[in-house]
């Protein structure tokens, strides 16, 4: 498993990272890209489009035991075309967002719209980084500067 602390600062644009960025893309932009790519995709078969739960385990820091923290509501889509698979899963219940992710993933697997997909994921990367930095600069403002008398 290859992710690091801060998790969006991960290596280069690996498959893992590309998928993470697609899931983090704002839904309107992702859906617009999927609609643009859809006419170029041959005979898309929808295998799954549903909401459901993902169990979220956590590791206890005292004994190292993994336990279930709870469940997370997700939307999932699974499509197939031309021998390739597209898959999308996002937190929440937006089935269209998950389907858009699956279609973009499918297009990527078929080599369709690669430049557009890369452009969107790069945009998401910048937007996400800026948003995280904004949060973390506000968090940094609450760091206690200790002074011992």
């Amino acid at each position, binding site marked *: *498993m*290859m*992710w*690091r*602390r*801060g*998790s*969006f600062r991960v290596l280069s644009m*690996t*498959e*893992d990272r590309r*998928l*993470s960025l697609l*899931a*983090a893309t704002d839904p309107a932009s992702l859906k617009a890209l999927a609609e643009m790519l859809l006419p170029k995709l041959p005979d898309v078969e929808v295998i799954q489009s549903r*909401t*459901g*739960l*993902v*169990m*979220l*385990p*956590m*590791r*206890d*820091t*005292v*004994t*190292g*035991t*993994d*336990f*279930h*923290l*709870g*469940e*997370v*509501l*997700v939307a999932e889509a699974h499509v197939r075309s031309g021998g390739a*698979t597209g*898959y999308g*899963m*996002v*937190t*929440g*219940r937006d089935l269209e967002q998950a389907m858009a992710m699956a279609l973009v*993933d499918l297009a990527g697997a078929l080599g369709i719209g690669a430049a557009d997909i890369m452009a969107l994921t790069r945009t998401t990367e910048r937007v996400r980084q800026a948003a*995280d*930095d*904004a949060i*973390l*600069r*506000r*968090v*940094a*403002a*609450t*760091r*206690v500067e*200790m002074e011992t008398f």
Partner: protein
Amino acid sequence: MAYVAARGGERAIAEAERLYRAMTGPIDANRVEQLQAALPWLIDRVMGEASLSAPEMAALALAQTGGDLYEAVLVLRAWRSTQPRLATAAPVLQEALFTHRRISAAFKDIPGGQILGPTLDYSHRVLETAVLTGRDFVPEPVTPAADPAPAGQPSLAEWQRAQGLVSALPATPYVAPEDIPDITREPVLFPAPRAHRLQALARADTGGTLALGYAAMRGYGNAHPTVNELRLAEAEVMVRHPSRSFFSAGRVKVSQAEVVSKGRADTLELGFAATLGWNEVKVIAAATLDLNAAKAPKGSPVEEEFFLYHTEPVEASGFCIHFKLPHYVTFQSSLDAMRGASNRDAKGEAPLPVAPAEHQTEPAE
């Protein structure tokens, strides 16, 4: 015990529900959205107790129940049970958390420093009554630091282990995420696996956990806690693509606490708890129960069986409020026995022999 078949009351029941619903009035998407934006801590509490990270659904549950927390948790858990389980994510690791707040009350100079994050810990609590006379309360904006804090903060327990203050992690066999013990699929037996205990505490009732944890803090336990580390953060939900790549489907809010006490040997003992959403009281109280459980005497509030059975919000609230449902036959039976005893007393008759009294409980079903 006898049961009496009865009918009637359908109209009264229907009107009673209408009367209840009239108190909250029509519910639209706008109200749900406003609740979600205005009450993040309450949303988090409901999500934690319902064991479901779904802020929009938690806001809907609160809107629909007029803010009755136990009803909100019940409808959210009930809705959750209609959803299929699709996958198990990779375990959340402390060092991978996107951290908003990380403090220690036990050690001043900790690696990464004390990051207060969003808190009222050191603020005056004053009701802003001027809002009611038309003067809006507009919070002061945060002045951001020039440089961002690191997203990840180091583990305090690991730092303590490196100094020999805390026992090394025990060697635990690898358990695949799909094989982690799950109290929603299997009964809790005692002594419970640690995974069961921590899962039950993660979805426990905040108030119940606080009451029992507070009892331990006041002296009805065997270890006094100090917060070793408290963390509010976001965790990536790492799921598997059919190609076997792992990716994040999004982030969810989590909180976790370690509490520490001086052990009998030369090491510190730690208790741990975590939950979905940001809920500091709950994780500190729950970690205190975890810390105390090992040496707890039978029947004590900090004994594992006691606190796990009594902090389950749906079971506890459901059992409590079932007492307002008709118990006419059982109560009439008690009344008959009481009158019989009074009549015998009045006639100067000896009381009927009574079997040795047993601890009387109401069956849960």
